[in-house]
Structure formats: C-alpha cells, structure tokens
C-alpha cells in the first residue's frame, strides 16, 4: 500500500512537472510584459498559427491524465476527490512545490489541458480530401462564415423592422448601454475563431456589428451580439478620501503617505498655518539645502494656491535627497485631498500629483556592465 501510493505520487509528480515543462516549451508560451493594460489585450493568439501539433487523441489522453492526477492529488492532501476544485489544486501545488521564482508563470502549475494547450484547428478535410466547410477554399473559412452569419442576422432584424413599420407599430428604442462594454479585440476574435485574420477583416466585421447594433430592433439578436462584446471593467476604484481630523487645539489636520524609489514619507498637514514645514524635526531650509527639492515640496501647495495657509510636519526615511523630496510631495498631496473639493482632487490627479512614481532602479543583467550599458565592444 505504501509502495503503491509512493509510485502513484511519483507518477502524479511526474505528470505535474511534465505539464509545467510543456507549458513553458510549447508554442503557446505566453509572455506578459509589465505594462498596465488588461491581459486580454496583450495576449498573442498562437492557436491559429499553424496546422495541428497536438492530435485529438493526445488531448483526450491528457485530459484523462489530468483528472486522474487531480484525484491522486486530492488523496495526497487528504481531501475529498469529488469536490476538489481548481483553486484547491493551485493551493496544493504551491504547498508541495514551493518556488521562489518571481515570474508566476515559471512556477509549477497544474491546469486543465484545455487551458494549457492552445486550441488547435482540427483537420478540415475528410479522408477523401474533400473539405468539410463550404467556404474552405476562400482561405478564411471561419471569418467568412462569421460574416455571413452576422449579415443574416442583420437581414433578419431589417425584415422584422419592415414588418413593424408595415403594421404601424412603434419601433423599440431601448438603447444598449454602449459605455460599459467593448467589442472583442482582434486577438480575442482570432482566438474565438481559431483562425488568423487581417486588420482590415477585423475592422469590416466590427463595422458590420455596429451597423447591426444601430438598428432600432437590434434587441432581437441581443444574444448573438453579446457573444462579441465584453464588459469594460469597473471604473477606477473610487479612492476614499479621509475626512479631516481635529487635534486638541481644534485645528483641522490630515495625514498622507507617499513613497518614491526607496524613500517613504508620512506628512501631517495642519490648517490655519503660516507655511512652515518641518521634516524630521528640522526646518526644510536646513534639511533640503538644494532648491530643486524645495520646489518639489512647494508644488502641491502652489498648485492649489495654498502656499502660506498650511503648516506641515513630516517624517521621511530611506532613499536619497531627491527620492525623499518626491516622497514628501506625494504624501502632502494625498493629505491635501481632504482639504479640497472633488474637482480639485481630479485636477491634482491629472497634474500627476497623486500618482506614485513607478520608476525604480533597474536590475543589472549578467553579461552587461549595468542595466543597459554593455561591455566595451572590442573588434578583436
């Protein structure tokens, strides 16, 4: 029993690791650069790039192995195999194979094969060489069939509309909420159809969709249209602005925190002040002898036109001279939000006073002298 379970465990482990390696090595390797856009927009669709690399039988076998492995894993973890969800699997793998790698996708991972292996186009002709789809010889069979379908829906709607006009019935005028949704991107569409398309094709399709949506009776085909639209994620989370606090003397004050590079600062801005600013117990004229740093501190107050009206007491640590100045600037801007109307907060945000500066020191790479500088190139 012990030996068998050990063998089973080893087999399960092997399966997991194999899955992980395949994930990295397969053509579906997906790299994400650190740009703040949604992952949907950035992903490359490699599923449609070439003919089949994985046969159907292979995929089926992988699914069976995955399910088996899932049950073994559940057994290993002492949980019920019937109710073992994907989250449980992730947790179990993270526990069994702890990894210090920074890239989350390089860590060991066990997912359903349909997520791991990208969708492949099945063979589109039969044994006699005759293609299944009637539009195969256009080259872009899925795209044209989609266009045909959409146009059919459009004609449907127009017919319905004509009928309503003929019967003198009012046309339904409920507008779709276009603000909260977007069309699928080209890449997402390619993934859906498992076929590459050009930019022109994509724009034609989108125009057709928009034409369909513009018709008054378009809610007839609502379900069809929803297949191609996505909800835009909720607006930027509303940042809670703290209300003013009052200290013993009755003076209103508010606190803010800021970071820049490795410096972190906290600022307490008091009302009814004379413009005196103290950093770590030292006057700013002595703490920041350089004019540039003092200008940075001045910026939030000057922007709001409140230069001589507030006093500030801040503490700052870490970083260098410029980083500390930037950190205090951010902290004071955040603290000033409580004193100011919402419109001004929006102005401040647009001026960049409330944004955390993401620039940090870039890592030095091996084989180079610095983050970007290469070693001197010698011809011989």
């Amino acid at each position, binding site marked *: 029993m012990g030996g068998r379970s050990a063998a089973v465990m080893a087999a399960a482990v092997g399966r997991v690791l194999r899955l992980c390696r395949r994930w990295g090595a397969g053509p579906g390797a997906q790299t994400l650069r650190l740009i703040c856009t949604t992952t949907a927009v950035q992903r490359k669709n490699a599923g449609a790039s070439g003919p089949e690399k994985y046969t159907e039988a292979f995929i089926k076998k992988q699914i069976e192995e995955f399910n088996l492995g899932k049950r073994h894993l559940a057994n290993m973890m002492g949980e019920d195999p019937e109710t073992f969800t994907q989250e449980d699997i992730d947790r179990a793998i993270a526990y069994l194979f702890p990894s210090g790698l920074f890239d989350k996708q390089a860590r060991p991972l066990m997912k359903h094969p349909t997520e791991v292996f990208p969708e492949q186009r099945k063979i589109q002709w039969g044994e006699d060489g005759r293609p299944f789809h009637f539009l195969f010889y256009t080259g872009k069979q899925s795209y044209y069939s989609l266009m045909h379908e959409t146009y059919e829906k459009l004609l449907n709607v127009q017919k319905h509309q004509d009928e309503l006009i003929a019967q003198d019935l009012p046309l339904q005028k409920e507008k779709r909420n276009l603000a909260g949704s977007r069309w699928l991107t080209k890449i997402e569409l390619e993934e859906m159809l498992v076929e590459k398309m050009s930019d022109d094709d994509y724009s034609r399709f989108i125009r057709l969709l928009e034409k369909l949506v513009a018709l008054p009776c378009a809610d007839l085909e609502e379900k069809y249209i929803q297949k191609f639209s996505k909800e835009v994620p909720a607006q930027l989370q509303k940042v809670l602005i703290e209300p003013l606090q009052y200290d013993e003397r009755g003076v209103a004050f508010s606190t803010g925190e800021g970071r820049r590079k490795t410096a972190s600062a906290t600022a307490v801005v008091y009302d009814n002040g004379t*413009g005196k600013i103290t950093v770590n117990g030292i006057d700013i004229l002595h703490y920041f002898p350089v004019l540039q740093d003092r200008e940075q501190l001045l910026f939030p107050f000057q*922007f709001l*036109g409140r230069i001589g009206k507030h006093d500030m007491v801040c503490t700052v640590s870490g970083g260098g001279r410029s980083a500390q100045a930037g950190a205090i600037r951010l902290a004071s801007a955040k603290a000033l939000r409580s004193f100011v109307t919402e419109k001004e907060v929006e102005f401040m945000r647009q001026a960049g006073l409330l944004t955390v500066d993401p620039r940090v020191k870039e890592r030095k790479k091996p084989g180079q002298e610095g983050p970007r500088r290469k070693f001197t190139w010698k011809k011989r």
Partner: protein
Amino acid sequence: MLRSLQGLVCRSLKLDHGCVLHTAARDGLSSVSSQDVPAENPRAVFHTSESDPAKHTEQHEGRLYNIPLEEVKAVFPHGLPYRFQQQIQTFNEARVMVRKPALELLAYLKGSNFAHPAVRYVIYGERGTGKTMTLCHVVHYCSRQGWLVLHIPDAHLWVKNCKELLQSSYKKDRLDQPLQASVWLKNFKSSNERFLQEIKTQKKYMWGKQESTEEGRPLGEVVEQGLARVRSASDAVGVVLREIKQQSHRGSFRLLVAVDGVNALWGRTSLRKEDKSPVSPEELTLVHNLRKMVRNDWSGGAIVTTLSQTGSLFKPSSAYTPQELLGKEGFDALDPFVPIPVPNYSPREFESCYGYYLERKWLQHEKAHTEDGKAELRFLSGSNPRQLDRLAGPL
C-alpha cells in the same frame, strides 16, 4: 505641463460660463487687475530717507536706507559682503535694511558708558541671516559719529590660504603673514586717514637693524613703514593695535573694534609649517595681537564681533551658536559678552526686500510680480536673506 490650478480654471471659465467660480481663480483674477494700482506707493513704504544711522529708530525698522557711494568707498574699503558689493554696482546705490538686531546694538552703543571697560557684543545667527550686514550698519554709524573704526573684514582670511609664512623677527616662535597684513593696512589707512595723523606713537619702535620710528611720530608713519617694508607688516599691525588700545581710554577718540568671523581666532588653522606640523592660531602674530584687542581690558569704546560658520574651518555647517563655533577656549576668552541673535526676515522685512527688488526691476519674471510669486519666493527662500538674494538673481 499643468503648473497651477489658476491657469486651468481660468481656461475652463472661458469655456463654460456656468461653472462655479473657484475662490482661488477669483483671487488670481483680482490680483492681476489690481497690480497696476499701487505703482507709486512702494517707494515710500520700503525706503527711508534717513541716511544717518544715529537717527534710526523702530519706526524705520524693515526699511532700507541709502548710503551715498562716496561714503561707501570711504567707510567700507573692505568689509561688505561680496554679493552686496555686486548689488551696489548693479543698482548704483547702496541700500541697507534697518533691522531689529542692528537697532538693538545701536541703542546699547548710544547708552554705553565709555569710562567702563569695553563691552563685547557677539552677533550670531544661522547662515545667511545678515550678521555681516548688521556689523556694517554699526560700523557706518560709528564712522558717522567720528569713532576710530578698526574693522577686520574676515578673520578667517588670516587663518587659512596663506601662501607665505615668515618667521617673526620679533618673537622667535611666531609666524608672520606679510600679505594679509599689508592688505589690511592699506584698507585701514584709506578709511581712517584723519586719525592716523592725530595719534602719536608713545615708544620707539625698531624695524630691523636700521629703520626705526621715533616716539611722538604720527601713526601714519608706522603704517607707511608696514606698507613699504612688507616683511615687517605684521609687526606694524601689532604696533598700530597696541598704540590705539593704549590711547583709547584717554578719551580723545572712541574706538570700535569690529571683527567679522571672530571664531577664527580660537579655532584651528589650515596652515602648516615647513615641517608639516599644524599651526595653531596663537603662533600667528596677527591673531595674537587681535586677541589682545578683543580682551576687555581697555575702555573708551566697544567691541562688536560676528560669528561666522561660512568661512570657518573644521566646524559642521549646522553650528551657529556661540558655544559651538567659539569652542571652550574662545567662549572663555570672550566671556562675558552680550549675544545678539539675528533671525531670518520677518514678514515685514521680507515685504520690503521684495518690494525693493521689484522696484529696481531686479525681478524680471512676469510671475514674480504676482502675489503667488511672492508666496513662492517666501516659501522657497524660507525668508532667509541670502537664499532670497540667490533666488532673485536668475529671475
């Protein structure tokens, strides 16, 4: 780039009329319209025509008074801060602000009893707050009153960067500084011509083997001797100081000893002897004699000194109190003294300095004329006179 809310709101005001007028925008607009109005007044407010320091009172506090340029050349051959000299050249007039520490000092001087030993005043404060200018104000007052002014512009110059150090012929273990001494003698001569003729020597002094100055000769001759024979300049300085000190209690003239950077006399020097051993201040003739002057064992005058961190050696930049800058030795030597702290500009003084720059068209930037610009200047300079001066330069 969006620098100010004012511009944004003004632009948005032009676009949609129904938008709520922001209070800041209202102030901005009003200040733009009203700045043409008080064009004539600033001259009257910030300046005072009283150019005799003896008559300056609290009423004149915060205002600038004019010193005629010939007087400047006569009274201050040396001693004015370099940036102030440049400002005099640029504006073609010398305007000094009347501030509280100076008024305080002048009040003490006016009320002091000259039969008692000389009182020592030490002007101290942070960097760039106006200590040297206060000293110059006092020097101007004393020279107007007809005192003999012994003004050492910067004692730090005597303890560092000396190219030539000669062994003194008078005392074997002392070192002479001919260059510094001769420069000082030249300036002293140009500012106190009158006294040099009146004061007579009381002893015979030998300069080397052949030359000597007889008893009863005017002091001007000693000075000439020092200027002619540079080797004996330091000894000449010593003689001058000694004579003046001895004769001051007689009452024929009042003596003001004004030393800028007095903490140099008791610190360390950056000079080295030929065998690379460091020189301590006592070994320098000039410093030794000056220390004797600053002792309060004479009467008939006053000693006004300034502490200065800027030129000091081996002292941290945050040090500004007498305790820190003078060290134990200096503090004991100068004790008892009257400390006079000099703070940064008060709001009124800041206004008058800003008004003066505006009036002389020194601030060319268009934003400098607005209230916001003034607030910005006040913030960035921290009301420190030197910082304000440096800030206003490029504008």
